[in-house]
């Protein structure tokens, strides 16, 4: 994008385009769920500051890695200790 392509005052005319921003790029650690321990309470879903945790078809939870920054709040809040962070290797 060149300077000539910017709108006056750098206004962004497309609403809600923050959703395109891949905050998952910030991540160095990734949360993984242990289904043996998970009681499907949804505390991780509620506490996720980026709304990056969704419910799977079988009522467990997973992180949307496009947005998940790997902050670890879900790990900290999980009642049964079912979530742990693993190193991103890619």
């Amino acid at each position, binding site marked *: 994008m060149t300077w000539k392509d910017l709108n006056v*005052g750098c206004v962004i005319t497309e609403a809600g385009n923050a959703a395109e921003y891949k905050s998952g790029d910030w991540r160095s650690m990734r949360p993984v769920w242990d289904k043996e321990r998970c009681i499907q309470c949804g505390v991780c879903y509620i506490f996720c500051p980026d709304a990056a945790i969704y419910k799977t078809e079988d009522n467990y939870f997973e992180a949307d890695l496009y947005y998940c920054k790997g902050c670890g709040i879900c790990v900290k809040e999980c009642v049964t200790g079912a979530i742990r962070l693993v190193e991103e290797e890619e």
Partner: protein
Amino acid sequence: MPKRVGMEVSIGASEAVRLANVDAIAAYPITPQTHIVEHLSEFVANGELDAEFIPVESEHSAMSVCCGTSAAGARTFTCTSSQGLALMSEIVFIASAMQLPIVMILANRSLSGPLSIWNDHTDVMLVRDCGWIQAFGENGQEIFDLTLCAFKIAEDHRVLLPFMVNMDGFILSHVIEPIEILDQETVDSFLPVYNPLYRLDPDNPVTMGAFAMPDLYTETKKAQDERLKASLPVIEEIWEEYGKLTGRTYHPVETYKAEGAKTLFVTMGSFGETASTAVDAMREDGEPVGLCKIRLWRPFPFQAFHEAVKGVETLIVIDRATSYGGPGGPVAAEIRSALYTLDTPPKVVDFIAGLAGRDVAPGDYKAMYHRAQEKIASGDIAGYEIYGVRD
């Protein structure tokens, strides 16, 4: 028919804002700007001006509110001085980056410390690089005219930038002068209703003031710089149009008795009046002097300035602010830079004078003229001299 009425210049300035039919005013009172804010609040309270008058707890809030109202599509005005400008300065830079066509009168006053309420240009130089259009008026009529024109220029879709009208504190703000006040019909024919290019509207949402990562910030600054530079011909066009309407045409650089002059004084703001009187007297004594007044400080009118000083041997710049430890007052530093590419540039002698309300009378211009001759004769024109300081 326009009326010519004796009034305080601050009242004349508020009349211009009333006639511009602003939608929103957010300001915090500070000497010497207070009378403008007071008078505008009376207009709103009396129903003479249909606007939101938003009293705020600080100038930082004043400029923040102005950004909000302007972003919502309201014609917006504020005014301040000195410490008030310093406090709002954070948002002053944001207003120009967001290209919000706010109009502000700055009643120029020195910055603390020591605490001083009196007039110089220290405050405006604090925000020299804030990206606003910055113009200086010399008398009450000019302040009235420039303020009305400021709305039209700022809101022009080729410009869309905030506009700062500089008015010397006390020397102008508290002086009673005859001012020709236009009638509403004439103003309405000149100044159309503000038509925002973008505005905050829940039915048509946009993002204003988004952040920029390093891979885009440089492009935003280039766009902002080009935008400010491109405002110059529009400013000239609108001042011409105003001239056809009123008989008073303003120019980015104006000269007085410059014909045949070997030396020109260079001033900004109200000093132009006294300097004219001094030039008259010195011309009677046979001295080849004239005057060059910089009306438009940003965008700086390089071409007009070069034309104004063509063939002149010496420029005596009267600076009204200090760049401590720097190359000279901000105006002289700018002018030396502007002359650098010329093959035979005039010599520049820089005096810092009139700080914090210290009088600079016609006799002082004569004294500076002779002092400049001495400095040139001795070959010592580098840097600057603080005129009249007690050694």
